[in-house]
């Protein structure tokens, strides 16, 4: 066994024992990985010194995969097998795909989530994202001096402890779940899903010791988020968030592409030419940020030559409606926060697409102030994620003692009679949040009840996104209206929902982890995991054993720390029961049966339940006591 490191929660481990943690910005266009070194967050570059990894994955016939620049270079030649902007398909069905007619992919309308047929087989957007995450994991491991595959390693140092992955604040439950699945597939321990604008606020706020109300305006390649935060003495409190998870720089490219198509009067394009034209459009759009005009130039496979001059004003005119689409959610977020424009101290601009002058201008006009552009809009999200990862891994020192309070972006509701939605958890509720509702039966002898959970702001179920359906069975037959079914919805700190239901008179319980209507089944995830292991020639059993051993030593370590701190809360008998569970766990960890370790961990958890509750009460009391001392 490893030597046990005893450190109190909240206390920073000694430098050589720092846990290695990373933050990943999994972007639509570009992805990055960062970490905290000597208390400073840094982006980790690839071997050629590039910080950004284009979020592009190419599948080859021989089963190999190219990720990043190599894939980007081939996108116009092998459009069908080179997946760009896969993030736009995460947790989405075929009907949600924007302009499928201009997309070169061979979409497969799978029941959970749209999939793409490639030469290497049918791929889910989750698998595509996992390739990007895996590439970044390997990059980080190399930079941090971790040798992967040392699966038998006994000591916990030199291991990647965990990762924080960012998601657009406006991502719904299905999109978040898909991101978490992708990280799992890439072999990452996800400590937290963090909202992109919140990550940017951390990086900005900590760097500038900012206090007050700030807005973060994040327009990336495929998503738009706006968050209003209150920064006060180390607490980052999100007051409201809004956005559009299908609006970004890609849409500006598409506008320009359509405009040029019309000008040049081209015949319908092949997939390859479409991809070529779209990437030219992106280039021209970016050129127009700093130039009054730019040349749209392309040689198509039909030997046709496209040569159109675009001036800035034309581009602004054709895309003004897209800019306007960012302003409505921004106003709504302010209103939800109960704030006026004048309350906002600064507007932090994030995301490559905020470089466009007409976006800058519109935001400046709305807020009546020049937006803040003094940080790198490409890197700030990854840097904030790394800071949060460092804190969650327990590495923070006392002067880095800050806390994040985030919100649920979209209201959660359930379907009621007539296809109407009844809101249960309103948008912008601070996480974690839970609400309970009571239902009754409407027929005599009714023994089952279906509940349909949706997410969105509209009144009709058909206008909201279906999250999950579940059924409560075994209601004891009673007269209509006699049963009392209490359904509890909980949204955790990752913004993911779970539901529990119980009938009050009989205590019958049905707990369901919500499986999104748009998502992967557990079976699919297992298959993908198996495929990816085969791919990496990894040993599934060894991997599982290793995982459980790491989990087990975390458990032992933290229980020891808790006992050292609060052992006085236990009597001798209770103490003995916990000691016994811990030594049983240690014994199982010395063996090779990963299931046995898992069981021992569960037992140890149960053995420490009451202790954990008492510790929690003690810490709440300590806050109250602190007040008394200060005021007396």
């Amino acid at each position, binding site marked *: 066994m490893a030597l046990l490191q005893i450190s109190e929660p909240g206390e920073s481990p000694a430098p050589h024992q720092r846990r290695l943690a990373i933050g990943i910005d999994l972007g639509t266009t570009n992805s990055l990985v960062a970490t905290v070194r000597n208390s400073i967050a840094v982006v980790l570059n690839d071997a050629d010194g590039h910080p950004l990894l284009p979020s592009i994955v190419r599948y080859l016939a021989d089963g190999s995969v190219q990720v990043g620049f190599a894939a980007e270079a081939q996108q116009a030649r092998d459009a069908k097998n080179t997946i760009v902007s896969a993030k736009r398909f995460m947790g989405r069905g075929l009907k949600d795909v924007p302009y499928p007619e201009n997309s070169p992919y061979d979409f497969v309308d799978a029941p959970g989530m749209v999939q793409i047929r490639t030469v290497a087989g049918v791929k889910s957007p989750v698998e595509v994202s996992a390739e990007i995450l895996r590439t970044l994991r390997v990059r980080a491991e190399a930079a941090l001096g971790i040798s992967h595959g040392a699966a038998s390693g006994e000591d916990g140092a030199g291991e990647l402890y965990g990762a924080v992955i960012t998601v657009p604040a406006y991502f719904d439950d299905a999109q978040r779940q898909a991101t978490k699945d992708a990280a799992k597939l890439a072999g990452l321990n996800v400590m937290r899903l963090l909202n992109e604008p919140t990550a940017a606020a951390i990086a900005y706020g900590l760097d500038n010791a900012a206090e007050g109300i700030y807005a973060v305006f994040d327009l990336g390649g495929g998503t738009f988020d706006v968050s209003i935060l209150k920064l006060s003495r180390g607490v980052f409190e999100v007051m409201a968030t809004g956005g559009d998870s299908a609006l970004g720089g890609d849409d500006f490219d598409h506008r320009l592409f359509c405009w040029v198509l019309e000008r040049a009067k081209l015949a319908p394009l092949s997939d390859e030419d479409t991809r070529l034209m779209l990437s030219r459009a992106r280039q021209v759009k970016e050129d127009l940020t700093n130039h009054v005009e730019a040349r749209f130039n392309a040689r198509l496979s039909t030997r046709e030559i496209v040569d159109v001059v675009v001036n800035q004003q034309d581009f602004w005119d054709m895309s003004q409606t897209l800019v306007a689409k960012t302003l409505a959610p921004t106003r709504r977020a302010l209103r939800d926060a109960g704030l006026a424009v004048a309350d906002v101290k600064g507007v932090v601009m994030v995301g490559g697409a905020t470089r466009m002058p007409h976006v800058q201008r519109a935001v400046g006009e709305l807020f009546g102030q020049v937006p803040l552009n003094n940080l790198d809009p490409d890197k700030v999200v990854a840097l904030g994620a790394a800071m949060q990862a460092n804190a969650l891994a327990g590495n923070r020192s006392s002067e880095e003692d800050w806390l994040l309070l985030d919100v649920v972006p979209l209201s959660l509701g359930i379907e009621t009679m007539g296809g109407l939605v009844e809101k249960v958890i309103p948008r912008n509720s601070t996480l*974690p949040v839970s609400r309970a509702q009571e239902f009754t039966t409407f027929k005599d002898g009714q023994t089952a009840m279906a509940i349909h959970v949706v997410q969105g702001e509209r009144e009709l179920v058909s206008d909201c996104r279906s999250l999950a359906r579940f059924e409560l069975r075994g209601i004891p037959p009673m007269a209509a209206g006699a049963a009392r079914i209490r359904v509890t919805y909980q949204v955790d700190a990752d913004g993911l929902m779970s539901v529990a239901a119980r009938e009050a008179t009989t205590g019958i319980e049905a707990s369901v982890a919500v499986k999104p209507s748009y998502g992967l089944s557990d079976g699919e995830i297992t298959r993908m995991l198996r495929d990816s292991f085969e791919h990496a020639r990894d040993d599934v059993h060894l991997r599982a054993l290793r995982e459980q051993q790491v989990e087990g030593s975390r458990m032992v370590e933290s229980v020891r720390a808790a006992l050292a701190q609060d052992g006085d809360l236990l009597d001798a008998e209770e103490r003995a029961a916990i000691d016994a569970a811990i030594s049983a766990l240690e014994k199982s960890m010395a063996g090779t049966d990963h299931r046995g370790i898992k069981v021992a961990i569960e037992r*140890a958890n149960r053995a420490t339940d009451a202790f954990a509750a008492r510790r929690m009460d003690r810490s709440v009391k300590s806050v*109250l006591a602190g007040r008394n001392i200060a005021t007396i």
Partner: protein
Amino acid sequence: MNSPSDHFELFGLPRRFAVDLPALEKRYRDLQREVHPDRFSTAPVSEQRQSMEMATRVNEAYRTLKTPLLRVRYMLELEGGDVLAETNTAMPREFLMQQMGWREVLEEAAEARNAQRLDALDAQVGAELDATFADVEVALDARDGATSASLVRKLMFLDKLREEIGAAQERLEN
């Protein structure tokens, strides 16, 4: 040792309608610093569960105490009163007339896309809310359950109306 039994106790504040908001906010942050799940990401599952429950409770208590309407309803509940009791839901006729008048204004202004009119109505209803809160404070602190309950119902009407005005304003902007 028992957990604090009600929201006021959890925040170490006296059970009164007038809440010291800066103290409430400070206590909220102090509590979340101790109990939030981010503080327990390296802890065993048993502690993570406790943290999630307590952080959820702290959020709920904060929302309730911070929001005047939720706070008065909660106080009434603590007193054993029930605002939604089916009996005695009749509102004074005068108030109902005023309500109907305001709703008419709301409909007309929304139809005519008259933002100024909406803003004026919003201010008017806001003033009425403030005045009613002042009344309910007196009734609550005097432990006059019946009067409090009827005033709280009035507040709920007004709050609903204000929400609808907000929705109409939002529709105008988009």
